[in-house]
């Protein structure tokens, strides 16, 4: 084992979240380790995605959401007044279940983010596009058709394009919300390989309902559970190996052994 001090990308403290009057998340406290893959698992509807979206304030887009508690990103609470949400989302990118390529060319999809942030120089954009597509291991497949519509790509390619699109804005963290649930096994495999490659330079947080996936790719696993009529709580969090082989909480054990969910 290599010995190094683990740094945290996020430190979430006593996070509570309400949709209107309905409380969805209760008292979540967790550290997300830098340059590692953290998987968030739990049954459907347990608030995994909601929690993930707290990390780049995507929940701001939804009316009627109220959040209490603190989420420190690189030491600063992102819910403090005066947080630049636009800058936060540049630093904390997000991949969704549906790849949702914009209806424009492959090139323009990847260049979209850099252009948002004011990069106009064509050579510079060319470089970023190539570099991002290479990192997302899509370059070889698309280098001769950069000007074709992104909608012409297959589902798996579209998801890698979505990853390239996020990488192009040079984030520090990539949040992935069930990125493979719409993909076939071969495409899933490629995305998983890619995640492991990317972790050297990025912190990755992935929400998945697929426990094998969590076990295969993640370094840390958090188990969220919303018991009947209760908001979701963090039941157990630890190194993935420990969670899957030696869970401390009986509910975790029941879930990972497939007794419910």
């Amino acid at each position: 084992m290599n010995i190094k001090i683990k740094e945290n990308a996020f430190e979430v403290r006593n996070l509570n979240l309400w949709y209107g009057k309905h409380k969805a998340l209760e008292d979540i406290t967790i550290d997300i380790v830098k340059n590692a893959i953290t998987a968030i698992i739990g049954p459907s509807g347990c608030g995994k995605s909601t929690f993930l979206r707290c990390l780049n304030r995507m929940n701001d887009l939804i009316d009627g959401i109220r959040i209490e508690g603190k989420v420190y990103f690189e030491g600063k609470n992102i819910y403090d007044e005066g947080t630049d949400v636009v800058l936060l989302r540049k630093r904390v990118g997000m991949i969704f279940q549906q790849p949702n390529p914009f209806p424009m060319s492959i090139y323009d999809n990847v260049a979209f983010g850099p252009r948002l942030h004011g990069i106009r120089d064509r050579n510079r954009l060319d470089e970023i596009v190539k570099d991002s597509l290479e990192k997302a291991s899509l370059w070889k497949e698309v280098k001769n058709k950069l000007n074709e519509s992104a909608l012409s790509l297959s589902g798996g390619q579209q998801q890698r394009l979505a990853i390239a699109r996020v990488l192009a804005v040079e984030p520090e963290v990539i949040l992935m919300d069930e990125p493979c649930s719409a993909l076939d096994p071969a495409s899933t495999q490629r995305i998983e390989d890619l995640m492991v490659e990317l972790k050297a330079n990025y912190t990755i947080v992935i929400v998945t309902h697929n426990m094998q996936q969590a076990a295969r790719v993640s370094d840390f696993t958090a188990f969220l559970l919303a018991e009947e009529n209760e908001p979701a709580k963090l039941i157990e969090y630890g190194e993935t190996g420990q969670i899957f082989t030696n869970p401390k909480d009986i509910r975790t054990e029941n879930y990972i052994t497939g007794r419910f969910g």
Partner: protein
Amino acid sequence: MYELRKALNNIFLTLTWIASVSVILILLFIIAYITYKGAPVVNLKFITTWPQGYEAKGGIWPTIITTFYLTIFSAAIVTPIAVGGAIYLTEYSKPFSRFSRYVRFAADTLSSVPSIVYGIFGFAFFVIYLGFGWSMLSGSLTLALMILPLILRSTEEAILDVPYGYKEASYGLGATKWQTISRVVLRTAFPRILTGVILGMGRAFGETAAVMLTAGMALNIPISVFDGGRNMSSHLFLLATEGISLDAAFGTAFLLLVIILFFNVGAKRIARRVGK
């Protein structure tokens, strides 16, 4: 029992079939009749020369220019307003807020107001009160008001149809609200917005009552926005009601039909291109 049900079924099937066939037949009959009466009159001379003499021999050139002037000018006035309004309704105000519901209701009501009502309003307000006179400006402003609800609603629907995932992806990349609207939402909705604008232009193109009262009836090739003019359908109205020349009236009607057909086909094509 079974026999009766079967018979009823067949009767209604036949009735609906007759209904749908009559729709097509009526439409074809109108087109065929106008083509039969009008097409022989239309030639290059008819399109490019002025009406001459009391029988309006010659062509309809100035009315064509006036018609296009009014159509393009009114679209240029109304499009930014309609698109801006639709953006506000869909992206800034809450879609189901009282305000947006009122605006929608107003737009739907306004779009079924008879055009002569727009005409008399335009006459009283633009022509007389603001002193624009019978002019392209008065006519285009009135037409703009008339097609505003149509374009507002079609733009609104086009924007609402942009998948939420596109917006999410855009915000997720650090886009501001305006960047998301201008670079993703409007861009995606653009072909459908354009379709709505073209259909609105089609209505402005064929409008009679609202134009006669606001742009006047003088045969003229308008240059300045304060020039008056007579559009094609007003010309057609005068030719027919005053018994001047039914031939020229049918010729004008045929040209109107053809051009409006182009508007509709153009709108459909754009819509289809998006569908892919």
